[in-house]
């Protein structure tokens, strides 16, 4: 079906994309009599021929894309790995996807073959220029034919497309494949703009990706124009969010805040995905990528938008993350064999003060927690493989929830063994996540829920001797137990000097009667019941007149 699609796409492109250009050129050269039938059907003259060819190319790319996307119903819930062994989602109209993919490749091959001859004419306005150029530089014709026939067309063969050497050839020759220029040209422009901003101090770095012949721009002023944290591709250029770690795995809170989950992303993992788009553009042409961009950004998951867009699924094949859907198409990344997916990272023994996730953790306000995390990655892919010497996994400790204004701090958030402090009373959620550098931390997060006891004493600004004042400890907290019920507290009040009279020192709110004019220090110790006697003491002074 791929071959049928490729032939169909090639014929379509010949008549509706290459045809108008070729015929218009023939007419302009006075050669139309030799092509009377086609010439009569397509009486387009330059620039109508160029516009018509472009519109046709965009239109047919759109139709083929829609057909392929409809035939690739990626489930919207949960991580999905598409594997050729049948572990993926069902594709009842798989032949449509194959036909459409072949169509795109065949069409792109013919356009690749045509444009090098047409473009000089388009730019010069002289049809003879193209023929003269071809005559003067047969290398151009040879290169165009080579790219179209030897490089682009074989992409329809799964065994070829999944070959890393082929991916390299396809990516590098994309530079001289005109159908990629609408994307690569814009990419060059964006790269230049980002580079100019670097002159004014914007943090920008450029890293060539030699495998597919792409150039990464890391940072720059134009990064906020996509859904952060992420990156985007424009032909042989791709652009990454500067917050994504360049060489070490990092985690970036999603737009909804840390409570929404974690995104583990490295420049390495993002590179593999984005260069998958480079290969898409090389095989299918730029318009495929633009249509895919619209599909990803303007269609909901119910219509396979977002990361489940067809263009994204194909690009993801170049990374083969274990949590994102991918289609067995592009070359297996370095470090993986055959069509196997990336093995997700795993957790080792991870504790907080020696206790595992889910254990009841109780502390006094201001306590220091000892964090000990461990993670591993069976295939050391992609981080450690792509950057020899870098760790196989990156980790992060993070407080996903904490009492308002608590200001909980972690000494070394990206260090497996570190410490944290919990300054205020209440419930905390502490998560430990690990990534191997791929798009998402597939191991999920290990969650700890420290409960912190804090005594809070509220007293009047000033008191009068022999007149009772109220000391309020009801704002003291110990958070909730694991079932969510508030932990009961016991109260113990004391006052200095001891001559003061306390009505009932075990109540949350007490009455204190000072008997002398010296300042009185009211001290409260609260203890969380059932928490191994964890307590916290706070004091407050009251001037007495």
């Amino acid at each position, binding site marked *: 079906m791929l071959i049928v699609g490729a032939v169909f796409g090639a014929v379509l492109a010949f008549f509706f994309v290459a045809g108008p250009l070729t015929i218009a050129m023939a007419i302009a050269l006075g050669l139309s009599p030799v092509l009377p039938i086609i010439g009569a059907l397509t009486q387009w003259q330059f620039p109508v021929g160029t516009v018509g060819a472009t519109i046709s190319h965009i239109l047919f790319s759109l139709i083929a894309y829609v057909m392929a996307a409809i035939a690739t119903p990626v489930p919207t819930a949960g991580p999905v790995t598409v594997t050729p062994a049948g572990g993926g989602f069902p594709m009842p109209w798989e032949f449509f996807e194959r036909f459409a993919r072949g169509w795109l490749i065949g069409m792109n091959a013919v356009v690749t073959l045509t444009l090098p001859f047409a473009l000089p004419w388009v730019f010069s306005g002289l049809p003879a220029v193209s023929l003269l150029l071809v005559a003067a*530089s047969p*290398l*151009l014709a040879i*290169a165009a034919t080579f790219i179209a026939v030897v490089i682009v067309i074989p992409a329809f063969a799964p065994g070829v497309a999944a070959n*890393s*050497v082929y991916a*390299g*050839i396809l*990516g*590098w*020759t994309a*530079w*001289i494949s005109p159908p990629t220029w609408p994307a690569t040209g814009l990419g060059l422009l964006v790269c230049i703009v980002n580079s100019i901003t670097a002159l004014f101090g914007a943090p920008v770095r450029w890293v*060539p990706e*030699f*495998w*597919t*012949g792409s150039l990464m721009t890391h940072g720059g002023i134009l990064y906020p124009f996509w859904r952060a944290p992420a990156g985007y591709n424009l032909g042989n250029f791709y652009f990454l969010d500067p917050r994504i770690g360049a060489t070490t795995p990092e985690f970036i809170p999603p737009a909804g805040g840390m409570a929404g989950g974690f995104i583990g992303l490295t420049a390495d993992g993002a590179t593999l995905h984005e260069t998958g788009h480079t290969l898409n553009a090389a095989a299918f042409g730029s318009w495929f990528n633009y249509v895919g961009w619209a599909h990803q950004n303007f269609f909901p998951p119910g219509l396979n938008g977002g990361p489940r867009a067809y263009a994204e699924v194909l690009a993801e094949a170049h990374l083969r993350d274990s949590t994102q859907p991918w289609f067995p198409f592009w070359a297996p990344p*370095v*470090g993986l064999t055959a069509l196997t997916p990336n093995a997700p990272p795993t957790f080792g023994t991870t504790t907080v003060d020696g206790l595992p996730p889910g254990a009841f953790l109780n502390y006094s306000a201001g306590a220091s927690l000892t964090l000990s995390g461990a993670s591993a990655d069976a295939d050391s892919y992609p981080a*450690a*493989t*792509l950057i*020899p*010497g870098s760790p196989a996994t990156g980790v992060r400790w993070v407080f996903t929830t904490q009492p308002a204004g608590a200001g909980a701090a972690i000494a070394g958030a990206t260090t497996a063994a570190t410490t944290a402090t919990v300054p205020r009373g209440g419930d905390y959620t502490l998560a430990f996540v690990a990534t191997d550098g791929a798009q998402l931390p597939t191991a999920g997060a290990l969650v700890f829920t420290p409960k912190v006891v804090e005594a809070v004493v509220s007293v009047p600004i000033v008191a009068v001797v022999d007149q009772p004042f109220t000391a309020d400890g009801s704002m003291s907290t110990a958070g909730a137990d694991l079932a969510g019920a508030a932990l009961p507290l016991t109260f113990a009040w004391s006052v200095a000097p001891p001559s003061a009279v306390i009505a009932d020192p075990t109540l949350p709110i007490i009455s204190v009667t000072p008997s002398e004019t010296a300042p009185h220090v009211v001290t409260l110790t609260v203890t969380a019941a059932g928490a191994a006697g964890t307590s916290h003491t706070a004091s407050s002074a009251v001037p007495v007149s």
Partner: protein
Amino acid sequence: MACTLQIGGINGEAVTGGSLPTQLRVYVRRQGNCDQVEITVRVTQNGPAMFTAVAAPDNNGTATAGFIVEPPIFACGSPLWVEARCAAGDECSATAQVSIDCKAPSDGGPGGPNNGNWPWPFPPQLFCPLIGRGFTLALFTGIVTFLTGVAMALPPVIGAGVAIVVAAFGILAVWRHWCAIPYCYFWGAILWVLKRCLLAGAVLTLFFVSVATLLCTLAIGFAAGVVTNRLRKAHCHLPSMTTPLTQLPLW
């Protein structure tokens, strides 16, 4: 690139009749950013320092420190403990127990490990980086010459480029024959050459507006990608295009 040091060996020279060298020459291989190497020699790991010297690596990345042993007390083959630490540059160090090698420069004989002398004027610690650097430079020069010839459409220059590349592979044959080249070092040198040639090719393409040079440059880029993959699969360090030749590991 952080620096790394590697103890290359100890050569015993001016050997007395009793096979006791009166001079020791210690070689330390430097990679990365380190302009001065402090070399210390001890009899044993925890023994007192007998000799200490600071040496600057040569153009091939080898730091050499010579010590006088008077009276000569270490026999050829005796093990000594050597420590090397970067004294100017990034932080790196190395330690190793190495035996004193008492080979002398070539006596004109066939050479080889059983000859008793080196087959060349230098010990391998100096010879191997030198010829490795020669290969790398020759390959780079040859490819750039070839690209220039293609860009200018000058067959003699193209021919010269090809000849230099062939000569580079001749140097490679010598290098491979006499030196045990680590896989990562050899392919790292190739990648370094390809990266720089890619840049040179891009500049020539733009300057001469040459389709042929463009195609050659793309081919070089593709080759760089293949070599990069090889190095990654072997978990080798990837040399950067900006890494100076003097900091490339070449033995």
